[in-house]
């Protein structure tokens, strides 16, 4: 039988642990006489999660698993982390800087992350696409986009 990656075991165990946490937390919710109550459905799901996690764990243990190895491509991992960090930073910045200031920066930086090195072209596309989306949504579709405290 082909060995499974170590991650399969980690996911199985994590699923069991999550299920156990949900059972404990659901147990502290209000009880009702009729029906399932707020804790009933999460408890069913948690039991299902524990069972599925157990099947995943046992299947991985039976098949055997490869030794944990951190073989991930560093550059790829860094690119992914930078993309997520940029998106999170954007969420934090947009209430302050507003859509019009924060979005071109996000789009430009993402283009850089994607490997585009035509700086002027990227800057032009970032600004033009942001302004186009801003005009379209605020003027045509009448959807409010965050103006930001800086521009107010």
């Amino acid at each position, binding site marked *: *039988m082909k060995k499974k990656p170590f991650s399969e075991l980690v996911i199985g165990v994590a699923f069991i642990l999550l299920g156990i946490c949900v059972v404990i937390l659901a147990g502290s919710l209000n009880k009702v006489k009729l029906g399932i109550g707020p804790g009933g459905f999460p408890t069913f799901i948690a039991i299902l*999660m524990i069972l599925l996690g157990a099947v995943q764990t046992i299947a991985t243990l039976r098949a055997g698993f490869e030794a944990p190895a951190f073989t991930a491509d560093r550059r790829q991992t860094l690119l992914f982390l930078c993309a997520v960090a940029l998106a999170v930073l954007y969420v934090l910045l947009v209430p302050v800087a507003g859509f019009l200031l924060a979005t071109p920066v*996000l*789009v430009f930086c993402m283009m850089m992350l*994607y490997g585009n090195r035509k700086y002027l072209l990227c800057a032009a596309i970032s600004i033009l*696409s942001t302004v186009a989306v801003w005009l379209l949504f605020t003027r045509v579709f009448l959807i409010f986009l965050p103006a930001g405290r800086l521009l107010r």
Partner: protein
Amino acid sequence: MLPHLLAGFANVFQPFNFLYMTFGTVVGVVIGALPGLSGSMGIILLLPMVYAMEKSTALVMLCGIFCGSMFGGSVSAILLRTPGTPSATATLLDGYPLAQQGKAGKAIGTAAVGSVIGGLVSCACLILIAPQLAKVALKFHSADYFALALFGLSIMASSAGKNVLKGLMAGAFGLFISTVGTDPLVGSARFTFGNPKLMIGFPQLAVLIGVFALSEVFTQVQGGVHRVEVKEQNVTDFFPNSKEFRRIVLPAVVGAFIGVFIGIIPGTGGAIAVFIAYNVAQRMSRHPEEFGKGALEGIAAPEAANNGTTGGALVPMLTLGIPGDTVTSVMLGALTLIGVTPGPQLFVNSPDIIYAIFAGMIVIQFLMLVFGLLFAKVAPRVLQVPTDILMPIILMLCIVGAYSLANQTYHVAVAIAFGVIGFFMKKYHFPGAPLVLGVILGPIAEKNLDRALQLSRNDWTIFFRRPIALTFIILSIVMVGITFYNNAHEGKRKAGKKA
């Protein structure tokens, strides 16, 4: 029915409705053709637009994206040997070899004709089946709805193929996600850890944006600059001649019915239907040896099947509020934005909306034919849009879409969080669709389970005493059982071969 349908046609031919329907179809074709983007992504990108629209306008535009993307996927399958959507995977088996023979135009034309046949058959089935099913659904008890939700989840997990366990795990995780926030039964806070923002839970559409769209942005960033190389193709001579048409019409009609049948089953979709239709077309053909080398039936049948699923998938969505596939699950979320609650009551209270969809679906098939073929002419240039430009703009549109759900950055944060979860799910081969279905079906299952038990005074046998509920429960067990058995059998067969 006929007067309603005629009123529906009058509705869709209103200038604004027709304009947006055409726009939706064109966007669908283009999005579908771009590898990595799908119909669900198209709907997500246009979500903010639907607020400002009339209900029927928004609905026909969404249907346009749905149908257009099904056909669009075939264009890149034929020209690039890369299916634009999973539903176009079978089309490339014969479409690409035909394009290699210098007949790309003929291949795309056959795909368009097959798509129209599939779409029209599925419209006919939708118009005939949906109102009848809605009448039956009006009599559904809460126990039946709970069992139906269970069935939807089991089918979705089963359709995860060899990853059935992972499909079930993703579905269970989605169900758990749906329980976070204020519970729908007594209104108490659940798993919020005192955070007031979590009281609204994880909004379904923000989760959808994350799992289906942002995860793609995060995945593709690891690929670096990706510019598709499209060889110069002779994209002319679209339409099959009468002899060729006679050859493709029967496999296309059979494929269309297969598509409708698969589409109606909740949680399935075009990706499954196309291979069944392809195999059936090969068995039916007088020249099975031509399959894989550019057989026209090998293009028409799967294309008819994937467009056949469109009308089929709308049946459970409109009548029961249960999505037929991933695109309709996003559509279901979009409907809530415009205040449309799918279900049998929609047929009673808003027949104008229902028949506008029916009429729109018919008109869209012809729009798809015209604009699909026009797009095929410029496709070699459009498909060269590099990911390093496209993906950051998609990210921006996803953020706008998530923000516009409630004018809150919380929704954007949820979308990003689920984008990361979706990224890891892809990395470790967990299907995203069962998670989304779990999030959608979770509240339906919970409310109906509670209501059924309240009505029966906590008598669990209610689920086995009602014939409809019992049927769905048995079907759920059988579906999961068959899939596990097939997986085990397949594993043993492979082990035997190696030995």
